[in-house]
């Protein structure tokens, strides 16, 4: 079997040549997607890529650090509006995106301060309050939100002779790959280990020399940075912003994605993004079914499969590795 024999081996991204091969095949399939998929699937794939980035960030906070948060829509709105305003002023795409992430990250630090004193349900309420307050500020402050007609975002100009959809897809896919690699490295570094230690028992972590203030704030800042980038990409994708986009339902959608995809799992975040994008697509004829499915999936996942889709994937893989034994 594949035992991990050294720390260096544990840190490696993919341990076996076969894994590298499969990863390469997956990436090639994704790169070739514009060749065989029609434009509606391309748009969905772009949407999955941008959601996966935000959900990965939430997973760092909820899954790895164990700080529950229902304020995602607030960070999303801050990211999206910073991006839109900067883009309107003529700031280049990537720079505006980084600024959107930084703005949301700063807000994350501000929300992180209460988290130093609050735990579990109390933190959930505080972040919920933050999310709703940000929504109401944007809804009532016309200077920020562009008033009744909303705020429009200048479209991305495609390059290299690609059509706009293909170009957007490649950019979003590229950003997803970058953030996946960054997240993997982050969680296997000492920072990630500190996060996990805080999740398992913050008092014990503090005794072992983890600076709680620094790492809790860092977790909030990093996760809101991701969510801010998600917001910026979402603003670019929508092309038109209205405060209603960032209501409490959006926070819940992101939360559902983290739970269903699998807590503390990077590939789970991507699976969770696929879940929350594809389910509404398949049931677009009967919208009422979407929250029912979300809710039932949460109930089933938490009672029977606490690690979510990622856990299911690990179990399936183990089954084939151990076959015919079980």
């Amino acid at each position, binding site marked *: 079997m594949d035992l991990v024999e050294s720390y260096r081996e544990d840190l490696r991204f993919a341990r076996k040549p076969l894994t590298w091969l499969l990863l390469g095949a997956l990436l090639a399939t994704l790169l070739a997607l514009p060749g065989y998929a029609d434009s509606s699937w391309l748009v969905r794939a772009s949407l999955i890529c941008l959601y996966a980035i935000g959900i990965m960030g939430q997973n760092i906070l909820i899954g790895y650090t164990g700080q*529950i948060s229902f304020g995602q829509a607030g960070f999303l709105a801050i990211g999206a509006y910073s991006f839109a305003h900067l883009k309107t002023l003529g700031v280049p795409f990537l720079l505006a995106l980084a600024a959107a992430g930084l703005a949301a990250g700063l807000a994350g630090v501000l929300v992180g*301060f*209460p988290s130093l*004193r*609050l*735990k*579990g*349900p*109390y933190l*959930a*309420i*505080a972040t*919920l*309050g*933050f999310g*709703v*307050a940000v929504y*109401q*500020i944007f809804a*009532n402050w016309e200077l920020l939100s562009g008033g009744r007609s909303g705020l429009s975002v200048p479209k991305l100009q495609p390059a290299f002779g690609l059509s706009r959809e293909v170009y957007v897809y490649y950019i979003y896919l590229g950003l997803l790959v970058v953030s996946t690699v960054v997240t993997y490295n982050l969680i296997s570094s000492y920072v990630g280990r500190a996060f996990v230690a805080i999740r398992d*028992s913050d*008092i*014990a972590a503090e005794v072992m020399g983890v600076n709680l203030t620094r790492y809790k704030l860092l977790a909030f800042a990093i996760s809101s940075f991701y969510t801010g980038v998600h917001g910026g990409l979402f603003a670019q994708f929508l092309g038109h912003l209205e405060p209603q986009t960032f209501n*409490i339902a959006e926070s*819940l959608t992101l*939360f*559902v994605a983290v*739970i269903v995809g699998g807590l503390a799992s990077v590939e789970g975040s991507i699976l969770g993004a696929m879940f929350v994008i594809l389910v509404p697509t398949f049931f677009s004829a*009967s*919208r*009422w*079914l*979407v*929250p*029912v*499915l*979300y*809710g*039932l*999936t*949460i*109930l089933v996942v*938490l*009672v*029977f499969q*606490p690690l979510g889709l990622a856990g299911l994937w690990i179990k399936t893989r183990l089954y084939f590795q151990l076959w015919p034994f079980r």
Partner: protein
Amino acid sequence: MARFLQYALTGLSAGSLYALVALGIVLIYRSTRVLNFAHGDVATLGTFVAFALVSQGYSFSVAFAVAVLVGAALSVAFYFGVLIPAQRQGATLLGQVILTLGLALVFQGLIVYQWGAEPDRLPFPLSDSKTWKLGPVFISQLSLGTLAAGLVGSLLLYLLVQKTRLGLAMRATSENLQAAQTLGIPTRMVLSVSWAVASVLGVVAGVFLAAALFLDPFFMLDPFLKGFAAAVLGGLNSLPGAVVGGLILGVAESLTGGYLTIQFKNTLAFVIIIVVLLVRPEGLLGHEFKERV
């Protein structure tokens, strides 16, 4: 001064409903440490049941009674059907909170399926336009009824919790679950009663709110969040705190709307949550839980 009193009275009437919602949240929180995110949606469902019965020609009192019973039955079914199996599987507290969130989503979808997303008007025996003059201030029949419902509801809950044997069992269970079990209290029955009573309070608040607002599948979201704020303000484990918090929140909101800004009236509740959690996380009348490693 008359203007101030008028705002305060309107605020008290709204606040008494926040207090009812907050009481439901606190009742469940202090006995099980679970924050019930489905509280608002159970109340919405109960209110829609009342609406359906009234539109089919049943009298309002029958519809109201059935709605309250349906709300209670749903909560008890959730407690026995989902929460207890989850606890057997070793679900954490946070997991149980997330389960109530899942239940909320399920109810939301079912309500939209059954009754549609368009706003309806709940026929209500008390009128909003008939007003009385009390000294310098006016009060409508509906606000007076709302205030009465809030006070009677809180009073009945007080009598139940403080003066009956069942209430004693409820207090014992929330104080120390294992000790209560050892002393022969059927804690599961007691906890299911807590869930049922909480939902009854929620449905009562929902019916009165639906009379003042429009009835649509999401009408309880705002009052629910404000009930939450009221519960946090008063202390999440204190029943009197919930009432005090609800009334303070109602009055503060009404005064903000009257004197400062009507736009940010609804944001006040969330500012209060964040400030209270920062300054005094246990709330006005609550006490802190200690945790061990």
